[in-house]
């Protein structure tokens, strides 16, 4: 049994757990004018993570980040506070993508696809359209940062 479990990358199951509970994002993207382009922001933001996984990332912060993401998502689920679940999902994706060093900036910019981005925009008295444009700009910046830094940590060498 343990041999079978060891063959599965459990961080991916953490991603699945968080993604399952983050399904409300679909509702927000479909109904809230401020969040309409959140799906595109998530897609752009995720691109470097996909590339890193494709190249076989060796996540330095994998375990700690996966645990923290799981904890955030669980508190979010129990407390019905979606933004914690979304941060859990971002962290879980980061844990499989190999976040290190400057790539934490990419992770922090995950806010670009979250509904809280639209809420902050509305609190600044901005209409929905410029908030969505700004959302995409931040997503592009995040994608660029992730492309540059994600999974780019030099391999550890033994002396």
């Amino acid at each position, binding site marked *: 049994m343990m041999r079978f479990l060891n063959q599965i990358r459990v961080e991916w199951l953490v991603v699945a757990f968080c993604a399952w509970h983050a399904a409300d994002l679909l509702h927000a993207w479909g109904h809230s*004018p401020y969040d309409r382009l959140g799906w595109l922001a998530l897609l752009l933001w995720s691109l470097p993570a996909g590339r890193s996984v494709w190249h076989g990332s060796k996540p330095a912060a994998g375990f700690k980040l996966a645990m923290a993401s799981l904890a955030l998502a669980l508190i979010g689920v129990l407390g019905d506070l979606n933004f914690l679940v979304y941060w859990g999902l971002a962290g879980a994706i980061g844990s499989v993508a190999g976040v290190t060093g400057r790539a934490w900036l990419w992770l922090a910019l995950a806010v670009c696809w979250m509904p809280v981005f639209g809420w902050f925009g509305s609190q600044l008295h901005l209409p929905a359209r410029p908030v969505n444009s700004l959302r995409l700009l931040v997503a592009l910046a995040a994608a660029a940062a992730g492309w540059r830094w994600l999974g780019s940590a030099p391999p550890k060498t033994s002396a």
Partner: protein
Amino acid sequence: MNNSAKKILWVALGIALLLSLVWQFVPLRDASARLDAIPLSGLGFQGKDLPLAEVEKAIYSPARVLKRVYQVGRQQVIVVAIDGSRNRHAIHDPTFCFRGAGWIIGAARDLPVPGGYARVLSLTKDGRHIEAVYWLSDGQTRHASALDYWWQTTWRRLTLGHSGAEPILFVLQPVNRESLDWELLLEQFPALLES
């Protein structure tokens, strides 16, 4: 990730799965009784239930929503009251909803009510100007803060309802007029401030 770290993550994931499944079946007392206690008619006011539009049903479901038009003295008002016990995400910050619907929020002022305050918003859209009033009430205290609402409801769910009653969101809008005498309206219809 080494094997012991993997084992820990497996156990944590198992616990998270179990807790998230069990939590759904723990009953959380809702605010139905307080919603039902809002009278349809009484001395000085007469109301009529309004059907929800399809888009409203999609947004609110499965939360309980009361939508009525009331004649209160010489004033007509639409009252929407939402109990988010069954879907907390049905309740949004009203300023977010109004802006999302294209309204520009001008002035905002607090209106003192028993147990706290409500907020009066001046809204403009396509040259049309109206006022709206909203507050969140747990039956004892009233406020108009989305952050306080999130805190109240999150803490309530984490404590399985032991931290207090579920707040109900009340949103009032005038019918065929820009504004109403809100103080007079709430004075003539005090039941709105009892739920």
